[in-house]
């Protein structure tokens, strides 16, 4: 293919994927409200839209009450008055929501959604992604994760409000601290697959999921929660202390963009976790029917998102010193130790130094 064709295809695939995930964001927020309500013994949003099921002799049954709630929310956000605080820094105040949303969307670029597949007569090889075959895919994700902090920090600073600045400062320290644990835990699948390409990492899980490295998987999950500022790491928007933290001065669709970036990040990090540790698009019969890959990765992603919501309903928020102690004194040493042990094992295995006994044990674990 010529470069122009490659670019056009990437645009087309990107359009479809981003639209799908934006729909996913809308229903992710609905899912969160519904699930949180259920966890707390409430019903949740159930007014906007339903599927009428006619019943003989009685009033019709209302199924799936509230399915149109995301649409109603979107309309509300779009038609709200677009306020800018008088003392805010106009340029950066406008820029900040975009800086939050753009990295969250860009991460979708390298996630493989299916294996080698033919759709409408065009072959997607080596796998189906917006930008397949990037040999630094993992680094791309890490760099976007590190860029993501700007949106929050700039929102906090430009609003010219004490609460917002405090939220922004809290986030900076938190994200810089947890990035290290995130990076170290990501390196484990990289070492086991011997590649930085996400598609090759998925293919390397043919013999078994990398979840055998469950310590790395848990560290990754916790670190992503901290990177997204999801509960229990949501100190930056602690209602009781900072009202809404960095976004206290934002309203309308500008607030909507922060809201969107949070759910987009939830979906993409969850998809990345599925890719790195749970076999990505791989599952039964996926070699004969590659289209099943879409279902598998979407299902795995959904499980990850539900897990995040569940944790929000369960755990109380960390105190700031607990957050820092946990990040630096528990998470980082554990993932560093895990990293060194895994690297040593893989090296011993490759060099053929290990005896037959250890070799068989390794075969059992590493595959």
């Amino acid at each position, binding site marked *: 293919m010529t470069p122009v064709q490659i670019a056009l295809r990437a645009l087309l695939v990107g359009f479809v994927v981003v639209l799908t995930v934006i729909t996913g964001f809308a229903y992710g927020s609905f899912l969160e409200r519904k699930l949180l309500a259920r966890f707390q013994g409430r019903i949740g949003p159930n007014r906007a839209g339903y599927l009428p099921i006619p019943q003989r002799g009685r009033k019709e049954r209302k199924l799936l009450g509230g399915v149109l709630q995301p649409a109603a929310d979107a309309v509300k956000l779009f038609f709200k008055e677009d306020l800018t605080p008088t003392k805010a*820094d106009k340029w*950066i105040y406008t820029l900040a929501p975009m800086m939050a949303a753009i990295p969250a969307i860009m991460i979708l670029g390298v996630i493989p959604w299916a294996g080698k597949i033919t759709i409408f007569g065009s072959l997607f090889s080596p796998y189906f992604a917006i930008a397949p075959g*990037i*040999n*630094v895919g993992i*680094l*791309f994700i*890490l*760099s976007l*994760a*590190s*860029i993501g*902090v*700007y949106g929050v*920090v*700039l929102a*906090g*600073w430009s609003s010219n409000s004490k609460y917002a*600045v405090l939220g*922004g*400062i809290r986030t*900076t*320290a938190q*994200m*810089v601290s947890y*990035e290290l644990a995130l990076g170290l835990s990501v390196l484990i699948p990289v070492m086991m697959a011997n590649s*930085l390409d996400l598609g090759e990492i998925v293919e390397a899980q043919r013999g078994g999921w990398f979840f055998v490295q469950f310590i790395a998987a848990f560290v990754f999950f916790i670190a992503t929660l901290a990177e997204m500022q999801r509960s229990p790491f949501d100190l930056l928007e602690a209602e009781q202390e900072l009202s809404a933290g960095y976004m206290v001065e934002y309203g309308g669709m500008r607030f909507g963009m922060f809201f969107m970036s949070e759910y987009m990040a939830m979906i993409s990090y969850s998809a990345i976790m599925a890719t790195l540790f749970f076999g990505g698009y791989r599952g039964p019969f996926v070699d004969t029917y590659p289209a099943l890959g879409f279902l598998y990765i979407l299902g795995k992603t959904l499980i990850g998102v539900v897990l995040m919501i569940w944790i929000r309903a369960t755990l109380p928020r960390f105190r700031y010193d607990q957050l820092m102690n946990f990040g630096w004194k528990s998470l980082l040493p554990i993932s560093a130790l895990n990293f060194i042990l895994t690297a040593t094992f893989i090296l011993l295995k490759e060099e053929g130094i290990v005896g037959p006994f250890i070799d068989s044990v390794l075969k059992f674990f590493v595959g």
Partner: protein
Amino acid sequence: MGNPILFLILAAVAVIAAVMMVRSRNAIYSALFLVLNFVTIAVLYLILNAPFIAMVQITVYAGAIMVLFLFVIMLLGAEKLQGFEESSKGQLWIAAFLAVVLIATFAVALIQGDPSSSGAVAGLDSSPSNLGLHLFKAYVFPFELTGVLLLAAMIGVVVLSRNSAKRGKDA
């Protein structure tokens, strides 16, 4: 070196961002222009077929170092430099002179250099695995030396912060 038009656009953005970084009176704006400059340079690395360097550039410089800069600026509240004048009047002229010297050096290097050797750089295998092999085989000693240097800096910070904490307790 890919598309010359693309390169010119990126170069213009990088230079303008650098100039704006020096000229703007607000430290936050300066930091943001520097971030823009770093990101543009990263894209230039991508054009030069060096994706690993590009990603590391964004992660380390734009993602870690500049975030800490912003953190410090916000904590100190030092973003506004009101009534700030150039510390020395001759600074601008010295800077202009040095810039001319630098450009002249570049020009001499470009004219006298062997243009055929630049093709060798573009043809290199710059994949992460090849880069890693070079780093840990040919350049392992400088690499480890850098590690020791960073460790020394880290220990220095720990020692300094320990001392100040103890002094605070005594007082």
